[in-house]
């Protein structure tokens, strides 16, 4: 075997600068994430709940039409609503309350989807920056024409899209199914506001949660430790709040723990974005519906929730930028 005289052949192709660099980071992050075990299972976990919501919307239409099947549909509907802890919504009053029921169903869906977002970030997003720190990939990244902000944007988009798969996509799917099985144009007009609110809510939760998990990922190199820290951040205050709730005279405690519980604040944010107070008031059945919507807990302290979530977002952004810059330097000089 001869020693090859490796001739350097000049590059004769194009060298484009049309594709934004963050897009390449996004593609790489998604590719690596989707290669993980059970990735599809986790990312599809939001779909059954969306189909359940679609079925509820369909049964609402059947009940609203009346006729032979309405009674049976009403019974099924009652059963399905119980699954979503909306057991007080009785069939006779459903025709007038279709749009409020939609709001309540989506509120309950988001309640479930928040747990999925926690799981998705723990599984996929935890390693986004931690992995680069561990494999010393930052000097390679930053030897290319990208800035720390571009890098973070690409990473954040990965976390955002993965979270969107279990919150935005199922919500859009449920909404579309609901519209298609109803009198489409009327329902579209009635629920256009709800649609926009749903998109804003889903994007907000996916975006903020993605940024927070990135900040943790930038602080810790070990993927499992990042996942544990993320789950603890979300759930510890919520579990503590649950204990306080159990022991409080009214069944729901308010106080500093509830104020910092991210899960509870996210639900307050959802309650506010979905405008449930107004929707419930318009039905004239506040006594019935406010209990189901948890108005006592989620309908209060909206300002505080916005401050907590906004502050956390700002803090996460600062941590990400500072840590990435610092690790860029440290990784290079190591």
């Amino acid at each position, binding site marked *: 075997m001869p020693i090859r005289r*490796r001739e350097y052949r000049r590059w004769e192709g194009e*060298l484009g600068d049309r594709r934004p660099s963050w897009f390449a980071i996004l593609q790489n992050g998604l590719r690596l994430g989707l290669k993980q075990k059970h990735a599809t299972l986790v990312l599809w976990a939001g779909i059954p709940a969306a189909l359940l919501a679609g079925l509820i919307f369909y049964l609402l239409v059947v009940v609203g039409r009346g006729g032979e099947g309405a009674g049976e549909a009403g019974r099924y509907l009652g059963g399905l609503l119980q699954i979503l802890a909306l057991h007080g919504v009785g069939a006779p009053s459903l025709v007038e309350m279709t749009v409020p029921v939609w709001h309540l169903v989506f509120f309950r869906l988001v309640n479930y989807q928040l747990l999925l977002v926690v799981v998705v970030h723990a599984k996929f997003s935890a390693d986004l920056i931690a992995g680069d720190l561990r494999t010393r990939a930052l000097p390679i990244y930053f030897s290319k024409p990208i800035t720390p902000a571009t890098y973070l944007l690409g990473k954040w988009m990965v976390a955002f899209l993965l979270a969107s798969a279990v919150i935005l996509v199922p919500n859009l799917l449920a909404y579309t199914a609901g519209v298609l099985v109803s009198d489409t144009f009327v329902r579209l007009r009635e629920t256009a506001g709800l649609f926009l609110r749903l998109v804003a809510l889903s994007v907000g939760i996916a975006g903020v949660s993605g940024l927070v998990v990135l900040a943790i990922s930038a602080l810790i190199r070990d993927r499992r430790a990042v996942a544990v820290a993320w789950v603890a951040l979300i759930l510890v205050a919520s579990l503590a709040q649950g204990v306080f709730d159990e022991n409080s005279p009214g069944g729901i405690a308010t106080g500093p723990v509830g104020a910092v519980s991210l899960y509870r604040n996210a639900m307050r944010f959802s309650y506010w974005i979905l405008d449930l107070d107004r929707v419930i008031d318009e039905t004239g059945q506040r006594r019935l519906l406010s209990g189901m919507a948890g108005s006592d807990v989620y309908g209060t302290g909206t300002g505080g929730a916005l401050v907590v979530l906004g502050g956390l977002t700002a803090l996460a952004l600062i941590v990400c930028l500072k840590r990435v810059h610092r690790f860029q330097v440290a990784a290079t000089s190591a």
Partner: protein
Amino acid sequence: MAVVIELEQLSKWYGEVMGLNNVTASIPSGITGLLGQNGAGKTTLLALATGQLRPSRGEIRVFGQRPWNNTALLSRIGYCPEGDSFWPGLSGRKFVRMLARLSGMTDRQACRAADWAIEQVGMTEHKGRRIAEYSRGMRQRTKIAQALVHDPELLILDEPLSGTDPVVRAELINLFKRMAEEGKTVIVSSHVLHEVAAMTENILLIDHGQLVADGNIHEVRSLLEGRRQRIAIGTPAGRKLATLLAPKEYIISLAIQEDGGLLLHTSDPERLQQELPRILLDNDIPCSEMASPDDNIRAVFGYLTRRPE
């Protein structure tokens, strides 16, 4: 020769630790060897040149521009870091392609450029395999390919030959020379003098963050003449190789290691470096690594800094 990089009283501290201290030098086009022991400040200097670090004092200019926060300049520079920086699970081709896209290429352009760069480093046969399955030399070549992928004018390579076997080393040195002939500027850091001597005459010598010497390597090498040096060769056929090397006049002693490898003393490491690949290939002897435990550059620093070895 045109000056590509200018350093003017350049210093970099990490807190109280000095990375680089008051270095003034010019790096021309062609190949320049950046020599220094581990921790001497080579990587700091290269990181300053690629804009990954900001100077604490003084100035560095690459193509007349300050590299810090200058992403436009980075599209003219290719950088191969010393350590492994791979994402697990990717093939060599996907890795290089992804980094091509970071340079702003579309998928199609990135595919073509990645294939081209991989071809330049002789990895075409293995480009579809996962990096985790690569040998150290293959990983090193893949890193060089990612540095090349956007066809930069300046190539900065941090210890690019470490871990490569003699045959690959000869091929890569040849590649760097050809690139320099094509008008590119190549900066190669190393702590092995004969590696650098095989590709360039122009060197910068750094020790403890300070520029100890720059200029012609032969002047530095003359300081080492007559000094014997240890070379370790990783091969399962050490005994066979020892038989073939024993008659060479530049071999002082030979010893078979426990793992079958060969440890030898030579009075002329450069000549050994030139002849060894041919001996290995002609006699079908596999070789995984060649290293210099003596780290002969220490001797040079001993002379230049008047410190004992």
